[in-house]
């Protein structure tokens, strides 16, 4: 059953994937409770334009994607906070533009047309040892930020006016959070592709939200669900020879529906309330 673990490429995929599950699990609940779930969809699709720009300019697509995603995240935040336009409306407009820009830039490459499907749906099994170091770097940045500013961001998510009054640097925290969320989304894109990244970011947190009313517990369940999904998804991918990214998303979605059923059962008195 676990014989797939002996292959080095699977080991890299698992290490990288599990690290990704931790940082996505930390950030996902914050995005959900700030009502910014759609932000990860916008940034992940925006990343595609960054990747295409790197290919077009002949430089590493990863770094152009990082710059593009952080820029897009900050821009979405700026427009939303200053232009009196909702984040969702801004994202809905910008992500289609980013996809169009990406397709156009890739089309401009005469002769060399990279595998667009690879960028859209990713490939966990293609994760190299270097990619796991990249994931580790992002995990370190995310964990440091989380323990330093996570509580303050929770406060401003709960009650922004009061947070301002007690001295939380709400604006600065917001933009740094947007940058961190964008960075985490790029890493998810690198591993599971543009289309599936938002699933890794949001679904574990959304499932956890249905199972608990405590922020710490929600975050822990979110991380655990992400890690479990990566492991089971990889195992199913190996056993049934299916692409790993979609397999992981199938497991995440299954956990989402299991959580939904558990919530329904709890609300209907099947489990005794605490």
């Amino acid at each position, binding site marked *: 059953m676990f014989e797939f673990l002996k292959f080095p490429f699977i080991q890299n995929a698992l290490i990288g994937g599990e690290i990704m599950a931790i940082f996505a699990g930390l950030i996902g609940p914050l995005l959900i*409770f700030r009502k910014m779930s759609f932000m990860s969809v916008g940034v992940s699709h925006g990343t595609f334009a960054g990747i295409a720009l790197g290919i077009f300019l002949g430089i590493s697509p990863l770094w152009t994607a990082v710059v593009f995603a952080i820029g897009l995240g900050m821009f979405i935040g700026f427009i939303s906070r200053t232009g009196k336009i909702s984040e969702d409306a801004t994202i809905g407009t910008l992500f289609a533009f980013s996809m169009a820009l990406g397709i156009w830039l890739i089309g401009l490459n005469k002769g060399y047309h990279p595998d667009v499907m690879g960028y859209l749906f990713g490939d966990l099994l293609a994760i190299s040892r270097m990619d796991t170091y990249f994931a580790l770097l992002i995990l370190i940045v995310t964990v440091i930020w989380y323990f330093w500013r996570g509580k*303050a961001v*929770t*406060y401003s*998510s*709960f*009650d922004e*006016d*009061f*947070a*301002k*009054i*007690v*001295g*939380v640097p709400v604006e600065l925290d917001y933009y740094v959070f947007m940058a961190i969320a964008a960075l985490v989304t790029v890493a998810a894109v690198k591993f599971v592709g543009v289309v599936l990244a938002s699933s890794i970011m949001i679904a574990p947190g959304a499932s956890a*939200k249905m199972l*608990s*009313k*405590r*922020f710490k*517990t*929600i975050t822990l369940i979110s991380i655990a669900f992400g890690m479990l999904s990566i492991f089971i998804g990889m195992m199913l991918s190996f056993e049934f020879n299916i692409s790993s990214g979609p397999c992981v998303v199938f497991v995440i979605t299954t956990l989402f529906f299991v959580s939904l059923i558990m919530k329904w059962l709890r609300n209907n008195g099947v489990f005794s309330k605490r």
Partner: protein
Amino acid sequence: MSEFLKIESLSVLYDGKPAIENVNLELELGKFHVIMGPNGGGKTTLIKAIAGLVPYQGKITVNGMEIRKYRKIHSIGYLAQRGAQFYNFPLSAVEVVEMGRYRFKESSKTKRRKALRFLKEVEMVSHANRPIGDLSGGQQQRVLIARALATESQIILMDEPLTGMDPRSQSNFYDMIERIKEKHNLTIVMSSHDIGFTTAYAQNVFCINKKLVPHNEVVKLLNEPEISKIYGPNFRLAQHFHLPAEDDDV
């Protein structure tokens, strides 16, 4: 009168249009001040200006210190309009109160201990670990008062905190405010539409409809001609009442 909170020539513009104009007020320490006025008259704007949440022209001082400087050193207790918070947010009552301790350099253990003490003051310590969203509207307001107390501010601003509360809960709320005001020598500034209760409890009622209308004398306000200046010529004042305090759960 020893003014504690002084507002001079205060104006706030939204999109170039005045929300409040040239407001001058002097509010005493340790008193319960109520702002009344019609919807859109500028009550919330005035409270937000004092809280530093909207830009303004004019001058606000606390004990002679410009309020922008004051806010860098001290917090101000603040309760937003009911329903403004994300009440399905996964924070427990005690975690919400800990928000008020953000500015204080103290250990998590001390923050928790003090937050529990403030919850005890509003008789909510038995609900400390319950998610804020599981509490009733009145209980949530008590937790938010504990959070305001946790800032150790001398000023508490409340923006229509009683909307949607039944009369019994309102009466209990006012009794609690009265008690904590006396204990901590707080200056409370609250906006409200409720003439009955506020005139029974407030020491200073002032009215705003873009500009300041009459203030200071509660009895004078109850004269229909005065009220009509604020709410229009056809306004008729309902009977006032004051419910005795009860310990039931709000």
